[in-house]
């Protein structure tokens, strides 16, 4: 019998972890001489108080949904993919090459083509770590970390030496052609009479991200492959005994994970910047770790957690703009969330389990 009810495991523990992280963050804000309550109010009004704020919040959310799903899928196969950052960088390369060198007259065509490019490049960047883990037993965490740095070097080289337009000093590609520009939420919502901010970068990719959540849920819980991935994650020997090929599952889980991380580029490279710049990912790959941990590796949980981090990101940007609290506050909150929901899970869990056990005895 489980030590505590499922709802406590799914909701209560993440909630308590979040409260601990928030409490500590409030102390940090107090320590640097600002008012935490005023900070929270400013974050809420900045991120959720206008369609402009929502536009940014949902833009960040879209990024984090993809990177969070990437970590979650790999995690179900008990693989810790810490390389979402590098995979998303390569995804950006895939998007840029598709947008710059393929004739794409309309976004309805450009979106699927660029998405395929992004997913392929992201998956390709996960391929070597996956192969090395499956066949040679190299630790996936170390290889994916190394591949993040290699990706940064590769992109730096390509942007500075090959992709930069002649005469430009900026290490970035040319602007993507008009036909590849994705409609923003403003463009999508205006025809049905909803007024949405023109300036905000949230775009049609948000819808793609929601579909990705659904697809990952279907994959993991409604297909044979998903069952095999989860069985492999629960117990490798049992999975092997049941005839599941560990090499195949490791490779497939990592390729899907890398592809999802790569897909993020459709949002930030194609939807927002409309060209590939240096360091386009801006740490979103790492936030995926916090998002997946927070969301308990479930697509729906990932969606909620991504929304939370989208809010934190936009709220944090507003704070940095109007107060003396730098943007790095978000990095601290992110670290605390990872710490409490990931590494110190037992610290939160053990007392709770004790409480539930004693409640049950009393009843």
């Amino acid at each position, binding site marked *: 019998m489980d030590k505590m009810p499922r709802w406590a495991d799914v909701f209560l523990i993440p909630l308590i972890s979040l409260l601990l992280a928030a409490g500590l963050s409030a102390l940090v804000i107090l320590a640097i001489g600002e008012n935490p309550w005023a900070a929270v109010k400013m974050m809420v009004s900045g991120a959720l108080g206008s369609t402009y704020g929502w536009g940014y919040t949902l833009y960040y959310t879209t990024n984090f949904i993809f990177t969070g799903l990437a970590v979650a899928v790999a995690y179900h196969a008990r693989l810790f993919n810490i390389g979402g950052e590098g995979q998303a960088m390569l995804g950006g390369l895939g998007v840029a090459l598709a947008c710059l060198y393929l004739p794409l007259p309309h976004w309805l065509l450009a979106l699927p083509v660029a998405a395929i490019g992004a997913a392929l490049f992201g998956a390709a960047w996960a391929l070597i770590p996956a192969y090395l883990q499956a066949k040679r037993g190299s630790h996936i965490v170390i290889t994916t970390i190394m591949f993040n740095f290699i990706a940064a070097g590769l992109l730096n080289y390509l942007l500075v030496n090959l992709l930069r337009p002649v005469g430009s000093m900026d290490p970035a590609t040319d602007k993507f052609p008009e036909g590849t520009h994705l409609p923003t939420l403003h463009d999508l919502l205006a025809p049905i009479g909803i007024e949405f901010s023109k300036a905000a970068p949230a775009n049609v990719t948000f819808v793609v991200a929601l579909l990705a959540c659904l697809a990952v849920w279907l994959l993991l819980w409604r297909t044979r492959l998903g069952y095999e991935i989860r069985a492999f994650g629960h117990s490798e020997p049992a999975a092997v005994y049941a005839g599941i090929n560990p090499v195949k599952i490791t490779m497939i889980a990592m390729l899907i994970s890398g592809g999802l991380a790569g897909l993020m580029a459709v949002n930030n490279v194609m939807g927002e910047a409309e060209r590939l710049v240096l360091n386009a990912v801006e740490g979103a790959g790492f936030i995926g770790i916090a998002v997946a941990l927070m969301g308990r590796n479930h697509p729906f949980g990932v969606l909620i957690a991504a929304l939370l981090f989208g809010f934190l990101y936009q709220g944090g940007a507003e704070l940095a703009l109007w107060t*003396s609290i730098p943007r790095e506050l978000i990095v601290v909150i992110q670290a605390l969330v990872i710490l409490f929901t990931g590494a110190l899970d037992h610290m939160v869990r053990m007392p709770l389990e004790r409480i539930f056990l004693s409640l049950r005895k009393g009843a």
Partner: protein
Amino acid sequence: MDFLTLIQILDSTIRLATPLLLACLAGLYSERAGVFDIGLEGKMLAAAFLSAAVAYVTGSVWLGLLAGIGASMLLALVHGLASITFRGNQLISGVAINFLAAGLTVLVAQSWFQQGGRTPSLMGGARFEPITLPFADALSGVPFLGPIYGDLVSGHSVLVYMAFALVPITWWILFRTRFGLRLRAVGENPAAVDTAGVSVTRLRYAAVLICGVLCGVAGAYLATGLQAGFVKDMTAGRGFIALAALIFAKWRPWNALWACLLFGLLQAVALRYQNLDLGGIVIPVQVMDVLPYILTVIFLAGFVGKAIPPRAGGEPYVKER
């Protein structure tokens, strides 16, 4: 390339290898005891900031060093708490520590100094000054040996000599003392150590705290020796290069020295030449930047030799099952 250029590159190799070596040895203690640590980077960064901040305020680099070690040990304690006491995931804990340091250093630096997340420049006694070894000046006239002794061996800060001395010391501790034997045993087979009546928890905490001390020195050297003050994200991936060097060194102290010197050399060359021209073939600077990582991946894959980590690494120890 003339002789003097070579000396200069090797000199900068030693400077750049020092933080790598300190962090690498730090990781060595922790991982040999069975606690994986991808939070070297964060501990170094926290130490770099606090050492620079305290050195600036007090004017004493030694107080700065102590403060840096303290900051790093605090994070090491968090790592120990998560991975030893609460048996959490050591990798996730390391990731969290890296972000915690990356965020907090800038936050606190901005609040204390209002210079966009950096400390003011350090001068005089707030920095580790180079030490001129005896006879360095007297021997400077001697061809060949003079420059080698005077420019390459002499003229580094005390932390550099300390880092290099730590290599034989670490070897001696790990392979010639009872503590070292137990430390290695706890990373291979903690149950056996427990059966022998030695506390696994205490040994692992000791290893994690030693790791904290050395990361603290590494960070302090970055901010008060190699450079004059703290800037945002100044570790710039050095913690991960040290991790790579540790794997490259197969978790052995002397190999760690060679690995760190090699990776230091790559950094020194990348720093000096934007694009290295080797007789018609131009090697771009980015290749030198990522070479440590590529080498580590190749090495880890077992194509050249085999890197086998401590057997109980990454596994929290549970007394009863």
